[in-house]
């Protein structure tokens, strides 16, 4: 459910009525009071993953994505309606293998993210196991 705030002309602000899972992960795993050292234990893995996610911004993959964005912009701005389909068609004929590789890459990146999320969930689950809690008599 999204409420659009309309105001002084142009530039609507998207106002979701509640947080998405992505918002929540950013917020409650990384922020808030840490009440004691033993509470932190369940969060160490998460913090590392959060840092990983930030490093991604300055990676070769990011640079290649920017380069592709620039390339797309060129095609879109050329105004030649035949340019894009022609190129796509040509690309398919001339470099099937190459395109396959590129698609594969995109897929891998998405899978990578999913893996990371699963890994994150696994870590939360493992780290939240009772053995990690300070129970004194439980160990």
């Amino acid at each position, binding site marked *: 459910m999204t409420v659009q705030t309309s105001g002084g002309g142009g*530039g609507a602000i998207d106002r979701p009525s509640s*947080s998405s899972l992505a918002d929540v992960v950013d917020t409650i*795993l990384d922020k808030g*009071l840490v009440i004691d050292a033993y*509470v932190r234990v369940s969060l160490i893995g998460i913090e590392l993953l959060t840092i990983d996610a930030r490093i991604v911004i300055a990676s070769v993959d990011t640079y290649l994505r*920017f*380069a592709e964005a*620039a390339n797309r912009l060129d095609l879109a701005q050329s105004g030649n309606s035949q340019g894009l389909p022609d190129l796509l068609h040509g690309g398919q004929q001339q470099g099937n293998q*190459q395109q396959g590789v590129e698609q594969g890459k995109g897929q891998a990146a998405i899978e990578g993210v999913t893996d990371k999320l699963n890994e994150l969930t696994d870590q*939360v689950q493992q780290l939240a196991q009772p053995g990690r809690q300070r129970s004194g008599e439980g160990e």
Partner: protein
Amino acid sequence: MSASAQTGQAQPGQQRVGWYIYGITTKDVEINSGAPAVGDPPGKVEVVRHGDVAALVSQVDVDRPLGRPDDLLAHERLLDGVAAKAPVLPIRFGAVVASREAVLDELLTPHGDEFARALREIEGRFEYLVRAKYVERAVVGEVLSENPTVAQLRERLAGQPEEATRDERIQLGQMIAQAVEAKRTEDTQKLIEAVESVVVANAVRPPSNEFDTANIAFLVERERQSDFENALQRVAADWDGRVTLRLLGPVAPYDFVQPPAPPQ
């Protein structure tokens, strides 16, 4: 109160329970029976009071994994729901203590005064999260028109086979990334300045996507909420077609709580 005697110690045929802590609020807060709670099935949120402060807690089965998406969402939704009505100090996801007594003895008793002070400070103030994101075509177009070197390199690479120009494409992307980074710094500052006069504080979060413009938490007084929204509206109008703005909140003050000093 039978559950309060349990300490999480394993006993044959008995469920081991812990007490999950969501946050700290004022003593007069009441929680509805249907409030969001972690666990499957969700627990019942209770208010454990001590002096002027109270902890929001619910029982969890400690033998079951915690951290499913539903658990994360429940934690945030409970806190955001309370934050709309009363001051609340969010506790980071995953805090579990062994017993109801431990909530009092280990949390509220040693830290009660600090919590009360922090709650007074946060009273009547709300956190908003503003996420601004570049429109890809617009920002890349800006970079190309502002940097002739970048535009020339892009021109040279156009139509060339990708595998033969990988290094140059990385170089092109890196130059664009640096230009976008500079814009991000500048635009984050612009956004902060645009609302500076109507907010109490800001906390800049790191970008999580290469097209992020700014990701900022703002603390806003109750009386300034509409001023804040209007100021943002002006920013959105200025940046129309270039940047999209997303406003979340009011939420609990996740970005503005300080860890209490360790007990002496």
